[in-house]
């Protein structure tokens, strides 16, 4: 495969039983926003014309023969295989289902998470993601073309080498955790940390004051003036109430606990 191949790679797309999320993303990559044709990449309709296979899916038993046939139908050179998506890279969430093909009796729980396309074909490029966004696929393809260097490298940490520091927050950890948990109800897991951070900042300030309850209320009101988003306001309000509820609750519980213990 000469230099020209880097300027022109024709790909054939093979689905080995994927949920078609990846398939659509592969197709999506061909559309105006990503346009791999500018690197000479073209989707072709028959493996005979293809230099590379984009394989998606966890390699079901039913697909296995077909995928092998596709591979054999490609010209003997260069036969690049790209595993697109987590399923193709490792079997994905389906890795140990009964219709999934596995060579030998590998279970797919090893560190490499063996499974997927590599059970059948030699893979030249893994593009994990569920589904990998078109940019991610482009990145993989760009690597094949030599336009980009790979970014990932294995990471190995042990607790002895890293410095462990329990983060300190202005409020009690258990209350923080409870608030964090109940915040899921209000604003969802994604935004909760930032909201909680804001709240803790306020709460910390309030806790230093003489009358934390009033101070906190005042600060939250101030936050209301500054913040435009109704949901953040709503959750801030919720946090304020919840905070005091938990505190009180704990006091009561603790008192009860101590009492019973004393008994």
């Amino acid at each position: 495969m000469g230099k020209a191949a880097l300027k022109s790679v024709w790909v054939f797309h093979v689905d080995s039983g994927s949920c078609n999320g990846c398939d659509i993303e592969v197709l999506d990559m061909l559309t105006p926003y990503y346009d791999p044709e500018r690197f000479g990449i073209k989707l072709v309709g028959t493996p005979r014309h293809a230099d590379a296979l984009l394989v998606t899916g966890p390699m079901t038993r039913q697909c296995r023969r077909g995928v092998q046939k596709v591979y054999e139908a490609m010209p003997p050179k260069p036969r690049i295989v790209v595993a697109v998506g987590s399923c193709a890279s490792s079997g994905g969430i389906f890795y140990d289902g009964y219709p999934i093909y596995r060579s030998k009796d590998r279970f797919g729980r090893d560190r490499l998470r063996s499974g997927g396309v590599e059970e059948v074909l030699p893979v030249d490029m893994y593009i994990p993601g569920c589904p990998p966004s078109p940019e991610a696929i482009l990145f993989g393809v760009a690597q094949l073309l030599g336009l980009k260097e790979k970014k990932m490298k294995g990471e190995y940490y042990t607790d002895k080498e890293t410095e462990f520091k329990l983060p300190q927050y202005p409020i009690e950890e258990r209350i923080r955790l409870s608030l964090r948990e109940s915040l899921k109800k209000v604003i969802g897991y994604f935004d909760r940390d930032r909201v909680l951070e804001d709240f803790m900042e306020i709460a910390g300030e309030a806790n230093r004051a003489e009358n934390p309850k009033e101070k906190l209320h005042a600060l939250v009101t101030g936050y209301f003036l500054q913040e435009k988003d109704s949901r953040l306001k709503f959750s801030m309000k919720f946090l304020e109430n919840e905070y005091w509820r938990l505190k009180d609750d704990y006091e009561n519980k603790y008192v009860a606990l101590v009492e019973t213990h004393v008994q």
Partner: protein
Amino acid sequence: MEDVKISYTESLISWKRPDLRVGVPVTVKYPLVPTEKPPEYRGKPHIDPNVCIGCGACVRACPADALTAEWDLENGLKSIVSNPARCIRCGRCEEACPTGAMKLTLEFELATPNKEDLVEVVEHHLTKCKKCGDYTEFTERQVEKAFQILPKEIVDANALGEKMQLCRECRMEESVKILAAQGRIIGDPLLLPPQHAKGGEK
């Protein structure tokens, strides 16, 4: 109040794709210029080794077994192994993580010719059982964290400080003793986040 940092929502609103082209060819410039995903993106999960306590809540939450816990009871090691090759980016690990060590980053450029590159391991040392000398199933950090969470009063009241340092069998024995003595179960699940409670149960 007077800080100048942009508020959370403003930072989200102001985000723009860096490589967008304006005009007729709408094709983005990526991969010729770097790009980034929106802040809401769920990318490759990453364990912050400085914060991870090795509780394994993420492992239990993971539907795809992209996260596994490897136990080496001989050497007292527990490794949380993450492999984004299997990851489905559901974010349940992030949701479950009690310390915020597990985060889905904005990283999407995972492609690699070698799957070794994707493996991420965080190794933890286990505590030793005070009673029998075997390794317990708690990591050192886990114990430390537990003490941070639990109010001192409760720890003292239930002698949890002792119990945390025991292996499962020994703890069972202890519990049975106490149960027999008091006729009730100690510890309030309300005070522990459920995930953590699950993590502790194992």
